[in-house]
């Protein structure tokens, strides 16, 4: 294998298949060999490799002491999982997160449907909504603290505020994106407006709302933990801060990993739920005849 070939292969691995590298015909075989390895195996190898590199760098002292070796973090993670106090912190975070999301959904979905189903209402409220939406939720934090103190109520309020706009907008888009042919069909068949709404508008909007939920859940978790970090209300964010003050880098990262895992788990759960409820949607169909 010539030098050029190795370089070309490396470039390919870095830049992906999009890179056009002129290479001699002999290089085809090894590249194909790599392509035969399943993607998941490559992904896990890359992850393991990255961890191994960090481990070596950390242990050899190249990195600062603030970045502990991954094996130490895994050890701390095992400790944390067997610690009841940590679970109670996790519960605090999850509760304010879930509470905020619930409020955002119960207010956001009906509001979106109400505004979205009337061209006039939508038109007149657009300016107000477009102005309020881009406000970063954290910017409202001082107001939330003034109103609700630094407890769980304040966190719920902030999560609800940040998730509300996402849910509202997705619902609005969903309601306004009902297929005109489907709408005309049920109108021509004389369905009452309430039935048109229940049978056509609601299911059409469901896919948008589901996407909104996943987005809102992700943003909601960020807001919850950020609030705990800043204000110091009980939860994973606060626990992370405590470990920082105590100088336990490994324990701190263990909590960060836990927060990440929660986010991934909830996201995956919502995805599974969506696939079941919206199995008919073109994004989830099985056995489609094309």
């Amino acid at each position, binding site marked *: 294998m010539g030098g050029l070939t190795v370089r070309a292969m490396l470039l390919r691995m870095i830049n992906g298949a999009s890179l056009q590298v002129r290479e001699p015909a002999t290089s085809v075989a090894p590249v194909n060999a790599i392509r035969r390895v399943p993607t998941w195996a490559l992904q896990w190898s890359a992850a393991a490799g990255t961890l191994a590199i960090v481990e070596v760098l950390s242990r050899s002292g190249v990195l600062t002491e603030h970045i502990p070796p991954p094996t130490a973090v895994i050890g701390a993670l095992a400790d944390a999982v067997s610690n009841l106090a940590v679970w109670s912190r996790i519960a605090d975070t999850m509760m304010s997160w879930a509470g905020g999301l619930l409020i955002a959904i119960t207010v956001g979905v009906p509001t979106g449907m109400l505004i979205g189903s009337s061209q006039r209402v939508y038109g007149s409220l657009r300016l107000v909504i477009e102005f309020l939406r881009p406000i970063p939720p954290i910017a409202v934090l001082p107001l939330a603290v003034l109103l609700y103190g630094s407890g769980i109520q304040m966190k719920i309020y902030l999560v609800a505020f940040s998730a509300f706009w996402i849910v509202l907008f997705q619902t609005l888009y969903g309601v306004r994106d009902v*297929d005109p*042919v*489907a709408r*005309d*069909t*049920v*109108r*021509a*068949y*004389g*369905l*009452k407006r309430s*039935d048109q709404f229940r*049978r*056509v508008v609601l*299911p059409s909007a469901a896919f948008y709302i589901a996407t909104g939920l996943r987005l809102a859940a992700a943003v909601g978790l960020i807001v919850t933990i950020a609030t705990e970090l800043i204000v110091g209300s009980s939860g994973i964010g606060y626990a992370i801060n405590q470990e920082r003050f105590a100088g336990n880098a490994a324990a701190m990262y263990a909590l960060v990993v836990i927060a990440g895992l929660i986010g991934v788990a909830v996201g995956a759960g919502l995805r599974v739920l969506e696939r079941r409820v919206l199995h*008919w*949607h*073109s994004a989830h*169909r099985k*056995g*489609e*005849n094309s």
Partner: protein
Amino acid sequence: MLEVQHLSKTYGSGEAAVRVVDDLTFTVKEGEFVCIVGPSGCGKTTLLKMISGLMPATSGEASFDGELIAGVPETLALVFQEYTRSLLPWLTVSENIALPIKKKHKREDCERLTREALHAVGLDSFSDHYPWQLSGGMQQRVAIARALAYHPKVLLMDEPFASVDAQTRSDLEDLMLGLRAQFGITVVLVTHDIDESVYLADRVVVLGPSPTRVVEIVDINLPQPRDQITTKELHEFANLRGHVMRLIKQRVDSRNGAATLS
């Protein structure tokens, strides 16, 4: 029973006003199969939307059994060209068919009507499938079954076979002729396909380019039952087809000529 008198439609207003339908007058008698044929963009869909009460006319009127059509009449059923969008993907085939009649009938009657309609279009065993699991031709059959189960006095169809392949198209044309013979339904079918209109209709309403007017109403006295091969081999078929083609071509040419001159 269906009377259209001096119907017109102008989209927009002021500077941006576009007169799409200029002046249409024709009638459809009970039990008749009327095809409305005209060039693409001449306002055929616009006409059907006014007749079905989905959209108000700018002037003129459409009446049904002597009653002016204002809202959506209860006795009309519509079949659109876009079957994939007209059938609701979250409902199964039988749920789609039952949706318009659910509130009108008892549950058993609703189920019976659905079953009969599915049988009439030859899809008995597909009631629990989702529309998107079926081929295009089968989906359009479902849409037709939904219309049949509704037992409309008039069945309005907007280019129903324009998005299926040639073989499926002639199958569906024959299905419509069979259903008409079997149930005696009144059908108004809009198409831009001259062959199709002559093959199916008792009368063909020929429309000119937009702003559209009725160019001529052609009686089609071809023998029934019709057949894709023998009917189309008839001298009479060729003559009628040629006649309708000439009517449309003249109008389109003279309009294009005027456009190049101005």
